[in-house]
């Protein structure tokens, strides 16, 4: 029996109007952050000078509630993790006074250490200074002052069961296990989701006082027990802006859709072409049509190369919630392009037609202002791209 939401409200949110202004792409890379700005037509783009050059920037996020505040999750190869904050659209920056950190444990015990802040999510529109952060190793943190100070959020960071599901550093991705995809239901600030690689998807309906697992229907690597949350590896979970009762997920083991109040995910990736498969990191939703979704499939065979299958990059789009998929590769190289796109590195703007953008680990940023029908390389020669977010500054 799925949990009952505190205030269900209308099933769909009010129709979101298409954006018409210029787009700013917020790019986090292994060697700093960049902002790529378009004109209103999205035909010409201009790249800023690097921000925090040399810092590893996992995520750069705009606060959609004021459209001025930017938060950057950063560290360097030597220095520990922190969060930088700008309240003037990136002109000036200040460091958080208390970045996300696990509690100090008593002498003689082994406490956890935040290696890097991986994910940033602005809070509910009714809580203008609230932000959430996910870290590596898996930790959930919250700020109530716009990102100046951070505290552990909820009980999960120290809960015995959750710690077992999180596993050790060796159980995560090569760059460390991560807590990500923190989602706040736009209709209900107490309704939260988050995901862990590894450690499954989780939901709270009481503002984080309690969480329940949400892994039914998800597959795990062959030979492992899907009933054990430890083995679940959601790569990216998104909630439909126009229909918050629908979620999509790109998982280590396929592409899924969840229509609440059901708590059972459906593997819609089975409808992808067999020779392409349904493995990848990112998943992008249409801002106004919960049946339309884009993914960037990667090779998940044998040793899991996780590059474009056969060296032929393509985005796949569904317009019917995953029943059928259409290949979109116009403008991409036809062969010998071994691209990897990370889970935060693909996004959509709110224009009509929707603009799509993704960054590769080889430092190219590609865009389409036709909903994926045609693609153009917007920037080359960036450092390894970790994240791309589309914003209207």
């Amino acid at each position, binding site marked *: 029996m799925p949990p009952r939401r505190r205030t269900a409200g209308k099933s769909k949110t009010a129709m979101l109007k298409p954006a018409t202004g210029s787009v700013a792409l917020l790019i986090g890379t292994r060697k700093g952050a960049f902002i790529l700005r378009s004109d209103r037509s999205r035909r010409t783009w201009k790249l800023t000078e690097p921000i925090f050059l040399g810092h590893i920037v996992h995520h750069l996020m705009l606060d959609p509630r004021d459209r001025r505040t930017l938060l950057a999750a950063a560290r360097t190869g030597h*220095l520990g993790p922190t969060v930088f904050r700008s309240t003037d659209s990136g002109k000036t920056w200040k460091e958080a*006074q208390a970045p996300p*950190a696990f509690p100090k444990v008593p002498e003689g015990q082994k406490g956890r250490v*935040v290696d890097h802040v991986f994910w940033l999510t602005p809070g509910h529109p009714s809580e203008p200074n609230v932000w959430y952060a996910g870290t590596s190793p898996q930790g959930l943190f919250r700020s109530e002052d716009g990102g100046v100070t951070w505290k552990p959020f909820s009980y999960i960071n120290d809960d015995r069961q959750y710690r077992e599901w999180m596993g050790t550093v060796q159980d995560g991705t090569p760059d460390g296990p991560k807590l990500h995809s923190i989602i706040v239901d736009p209709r209900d600030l107490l309704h939260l989701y988050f995901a862990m690689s590894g450690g499954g998807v989780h939901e709270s309906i009481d503002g984080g006082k309690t969480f329940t697992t949400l892994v039914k229907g998800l597959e795990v690597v062959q030979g492992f027990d899907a009933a054990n949350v430890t083995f679940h590896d959601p790569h990216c979970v998104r909630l439909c802006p126009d229909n918050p009762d629908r979620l999509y997920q790109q998982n280590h083991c396929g592409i899924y859709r969840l229509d609440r109040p059901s708590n059972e995910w459906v593997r819609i990736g089975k409808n992808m072409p067999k020779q392409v498969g349904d493995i990848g990191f990112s998943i992008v939703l249409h801002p106004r049509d919960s049946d339309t979704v884009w993914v960037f499939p990667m090779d998940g065979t044998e040793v899991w190369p996780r590059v474009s299958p056969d060296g032929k990059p393509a985005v796949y789009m569904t317009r019917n919630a995953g029943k059928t998929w259409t290949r979109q590769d116009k403008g991409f190289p036809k062969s010998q392009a071994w691209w990897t796109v990370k889970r935060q590195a693909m996004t959509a703007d709110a224009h009509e037609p929707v603009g799509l953008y993704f960054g590769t680990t080889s430092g190219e940023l590609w865009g389409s202002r036709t909903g994926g029908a045609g693609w153009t390389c917007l920037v080359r020669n960036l450092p390894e791209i970790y994240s791309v977010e589309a914003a209207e500054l």
Partner: protein
Amino acid sequence: MTVRIPSPLRSYTAQQAEVDVAGSTLKGVLTALDQQYPGLRFRIITEQDTIRQHIRIFVNEEQARDLSVALRPDDEIHIICALSGG
């Protein structure tokens, strides 16, 4: 005592390569350093009070393994970003 600051941390010290801080232990010096230059300590010391993986701290020419090292007023502290990279 003198604390030598590596270039990645000089944004905290107004680009000073050397700063003067008082303290009778390494932990005390780092606390004083953080009071003078807020935020610096967490970049080199974890929340569990351990020295970060790619940071080394030398007292005079001896490497400190933890923060309990006792200090004399004329000791010199070097904070080093360990050699790494390919």
